[in-house]
């Protein structure tokens, strides 16, 4: 068994064109390590050099933002759905 990862439109071309994939790992860090091993092209959009979550990426476990669950240490269960959504941000600056 494994968790399901929902892939945002902008990352699909670099991730096999799929809407969802099965992922392995018991933490968000492990799941993202699984994803970046399979799709190295997206690593820079998911993680910083130091392995922390990219500033402009939102990661959710079910309905919860992982920033409030411990970031890359957030727990993932087999039945969970993980969603990646690039942050929507900008401004006049």
């Amino acid at each position: 068994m494994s968790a399901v990862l929902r892939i945002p439109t902008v990352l699909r071309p670099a991730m096999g064109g799929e809407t969802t994939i099965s992922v392995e790992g018991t933490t968000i860090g492990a799941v993202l390590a699984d994803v970046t091993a399979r799709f190295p092209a997206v690593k820079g959009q998911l993680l910083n050099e130091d392995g922390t979550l990219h500033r402009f990426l939102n990661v959710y476990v079910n309905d919860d933002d992982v920033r409030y669950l411990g970031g890359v240490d957030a727990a993932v269960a087999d039945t969970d759905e993980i969603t990646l959504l690039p942050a929507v941000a900008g401004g006049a600056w």
Partner: protein
Amino acid sequence: MLTLTFDQREAMVATCIRALPDEGCGLLLGRADGVVVDVVASANVAASAKVYEIDPRVLLATFRRADDEGLEVIGVFHSHTHSPAYPSATDIRQAPDPAWHYVLVSLASSPADVRSYSVVQGEVSEEDVLVEGVTGTRADD
């Protein structure tokens, strides 16, 4: 082209006015042909007059709603409180989706100026905005 109702346009402007002195923002739920079905206001979690960020909870809820209703998130709007309705360097650098409509609401003048753009690989193009049968005028017309 972006197509929306007068009330949807006014909802965007009202969201941006309520957010003052900070920038206001929200998402556009609609169809791939550029027709807006709903304007979804968001808190600006950056809480700034110079930058905005859509509330991650609103972002997730709106994508879920799009899936449930057979719609798409087709764009985002935000205000420039003291500058023209044109994407800034920050807007262009952080534009996540080349298919999206990037709507700028400038409150630098009254009435508010509302314009829409596409941003593809850093290239900005203004597009027409159709509001209830009235075609907007692009800056280069």
